[in-house]
């Protein structure tokens, strides 16, 4: 039992903005004061300190074949030793962290939940093995659906019942959390050396279009009432002029409604927010996108903020990764995952003086500043935009125009011409940044017990040495940037795991997966699955992940 005393709480979900209060924890949950025996409580003095729910990273690449391939192809990343083994496990990595480092580094910035945002279904046993090797945080993985042959087939046949059954089957077999879509149709076209360029390009051999795939998946996802909406990586990622495709894609869900959450989450939008017609005249399309997102009540986005320095591009968007490899001349690995999708990995360094990199950096911030704080989640699309360990930097930048002005001095002047960053006066409040890192990502994912400190919530808590009554983030951005990097406490499931910025204990989180089988007729796709497996290298009975394979699975049943 814990008694967190006199903390200054910001908890947007429960409308609390800087109230001095006590929080009580029992059996890993936040409880009423009357539930605990104060004499038996471990007391944590949070006087003049900021008390928040643990951070939720709803889009990162932390497990599975891509990051592991990245580690293999980037030995230089493995030379940074973060911690030698002792009481805790050895951890290393510059930006591409090893599994233990991933959990520790999240905890060290006060984050307690992280979602692997693209898991190739055939690789799901591996994804879960790696998730199980990540300490502290709670986890989940999103299998990729947007280029899976049965999805094309049921979409072409306009058979939504079968599509729903297939999603339910796939989520159970992969122990997946929700429907991820990456460059729908484009990755299949890549198998023939191509891509799709608009929502109406046909996918080779299937006669379906990205527009149909997205629309059908969103409708199926909504009819299944999965906790999370479709999680979409749009077509034309990384292509100048692509902001129009992004806007057109968002408008596909106009008029669709869900009272609890968005019906479409568009991810790492920075990479899909470019105006212009080539890399010569590329500019920001962030303002137009922000207008559209702000005007819709059923779409959310995350930033995909680049951080200057080393990163590694890794996405299920195989054709884009090939383009990037050609553009930069950097190493490239292509990952095929049978008839479910593909992926690529390319090392990258974001340089402040490089006009394109500076532009990308500015666009990420524009999106973070111009989109309402209950619609945009803070993310770097780790490790595509850079390390999540830099979230405190992004938080400080969103809160301080002065800090942005200082940073603008060191980046390519192209940014002044091609974006409106310098003219944006918005300074997000601490409350809004807490929304963007806690309550909103939890709501976007549909995880009710995450991202807030109300009774019944998981006791995932971060306490920082920031007194909101005394610190002015606009002027004291250094304090914000420094203190969010070293929580006084990170508490995971009621256990103290970080004290004064250092890991003091290792706990193991759960892996959430969603079971929607009750909502569908699984028999309906039995024949289809049998024929699907005739063209597959793994037999049906061997495909997927069973509970016993996982360290700590948590099944969320959809009723």
């Amino acid at each position, binding site marked *: 039992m814990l008694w967190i005393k006199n903390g200054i709480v910001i908890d947007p979900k429960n409308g609390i903005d800087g109230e001095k209060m006590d929080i009580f924890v029992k059996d890993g949950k936040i409880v009423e004061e009357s539930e605990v025996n104060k004499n038996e409580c471990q007391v944590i003095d949070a006087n003049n300190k900021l008390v928040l729910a643990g951070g939720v990273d709803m889009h990162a690449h932390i497990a599975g074949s891509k990051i592991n391939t990245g580690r293999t*192809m*980037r*030995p*230089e*990343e493995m*030379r940074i030793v973060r911690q030698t083994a002792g009481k805790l496990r050895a951890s290393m990595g510059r930006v591409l962290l090893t599994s233990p480092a991933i959990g520790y580094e999240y905890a060290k910035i006060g984050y307690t939940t992280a979602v692997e945002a693209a898991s190739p279904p055939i690789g799901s046993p591996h994804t879960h093995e790696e998730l199980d090797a990540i300490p502290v945080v709670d986890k989940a993985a999103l299998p990729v659906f947007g280029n899976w042959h049965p999805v094309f087939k049921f979409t072409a046949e306009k058979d939504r019942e079968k599509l729903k059954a297939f999603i339910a089957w796939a989520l159970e077999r992969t122990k997946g959390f929700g429907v991820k879509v990456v460059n729908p149709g484009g990755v299949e076209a890549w198998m023939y050396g191509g891509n799709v360029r608009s929502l109406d390009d046909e996918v080779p051999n299937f006669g379906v279009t990205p527009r149909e795939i997205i629309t059908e998946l969103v409708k199926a996802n909504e009819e299944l009432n999965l906790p999370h909406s479709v999680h979409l990586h749009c077509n034309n990622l990384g292509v100048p002029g692509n902001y129009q495709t992004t806007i057109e894609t968002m408008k596909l869900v106009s008029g669709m409604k869900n009272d609890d959450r968005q019906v479409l989450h568009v991810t790492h939008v920075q990479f899909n927010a470019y105006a212009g017609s080539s890399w010569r005249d590329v500019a920001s399309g962030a303002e137009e996108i922000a207008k559209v997102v702000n005007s819709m009540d059923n779409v959310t986005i995350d930033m995909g903020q680049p951080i200057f320095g080393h990163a590694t591009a890794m996405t299920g968007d195989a054709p884009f990764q090939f383009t990037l490899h050609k553009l930069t001349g950097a190493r490239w690995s292509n990952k095929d995952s049978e008839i479910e999708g593909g992926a690529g990995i390319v090392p990258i360094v974001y340089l402040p003086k490089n006009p394109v990199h500076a532009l990308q950096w500015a666009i990420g911030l524009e999106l973070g500043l111009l989109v309402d704080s209950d619609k945009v989640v803070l993310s770097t699309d780790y490790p595509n935009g850079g390390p999540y360990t830099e979230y405190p930097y992004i938080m400080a930048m969103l809160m301080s125009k002065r800090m942005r002005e200082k940073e603008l001095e060191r980046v390519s002047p192209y940014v002044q011409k091609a974006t409106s960053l310098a003219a944006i006066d918005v300074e997000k409040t601490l409350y809004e940044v807490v929304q963007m890192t806690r309550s909103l990502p939890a709501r976007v994912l549909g995880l009710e017990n995450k991202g807030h400190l109300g009774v019944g919530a998981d006791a995932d808590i971060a306490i920082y040495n920031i007194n909101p009554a005394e610190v002015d983030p606009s002027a004291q951005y250094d304090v914000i940037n420094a203190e969010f990097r070293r929580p006084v406490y990170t508490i995971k499931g009621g256990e103290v795991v970080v004290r004064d910025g250092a890991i003091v204990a290792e706990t193991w989180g759960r892996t959430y997966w969603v079971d929607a089988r009750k909502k569908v007729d699984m028999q309906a796709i039995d024949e289809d699955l049998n024929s699907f497996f005739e063209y597959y290298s793994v037999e049906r009975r061997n495909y997927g992940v069973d509970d016993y394979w996982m360290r700590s699975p948590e099944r969320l049943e959809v009723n």
Partner: protein
Amino acid sequence: MLILKPKFEFEVSVEAELTPDLAEKGLEEIRSFKVWYGKLEKSLEELFEIEMQGDEKKLVLDGDFSKVKWIGAGMSEGEIVVKGNVGANCGAYMKGGRIVIEGNADDWLGAEMKDGEIVVKGNAKNLIGCAYYGDVTGMQGGGITIEGNAGNYIGEKMAGGVIEIKGSAGDFIGTEMKGGEIVIHGDCGFVGGDMKGGIIKIGGNFDLLPTFRKAEDGWVGDVLVNGEGKIVKI
């Protein structure tokens, strides 16, 4: 001057980033300097006899240091004299100063070094002045002289500085070289694969790739990468 002698014959590798800076530290600090003996963290005095003579910024390593890695790594000034053989990664990331090895050197000598001087009186093994796996640039400045012979992969991805080998060398010399100079007085194998710039001078026999074109005083290539590197006979 700080003199170190191994206390016993090392069974496993020792990782010790010994630089001349150490000679300027207090004796207590020197004794407790952390080194790795295999997987165990040890203090310097557990593995070496320590003797101080005067306050010169110089390190004398007396005895067999062939299992001791990372000597002089990142050093920026002063001198190291190894009176015997030295282990891998000697002088890696070196920024200045001088290392003299009276015996033989192991792999990765002067890898990614930026400046300074390394002299080997005996032979050296592979990967002299190279980039570590995954890095894009090898040696960028300074000089490495090998009085004897050297192994394979000399100066891979090197961008500046000079590597001189008075004897012969092995295969794959100056692969992906971007600048600087490699001089081999004896024979060697293939040279200049994917070479973009710099110059390789060879006294003896060598194997030329078909992707070099003849120029007035030698060959230019590697045309596969539109390279402007030069290979000349001396």
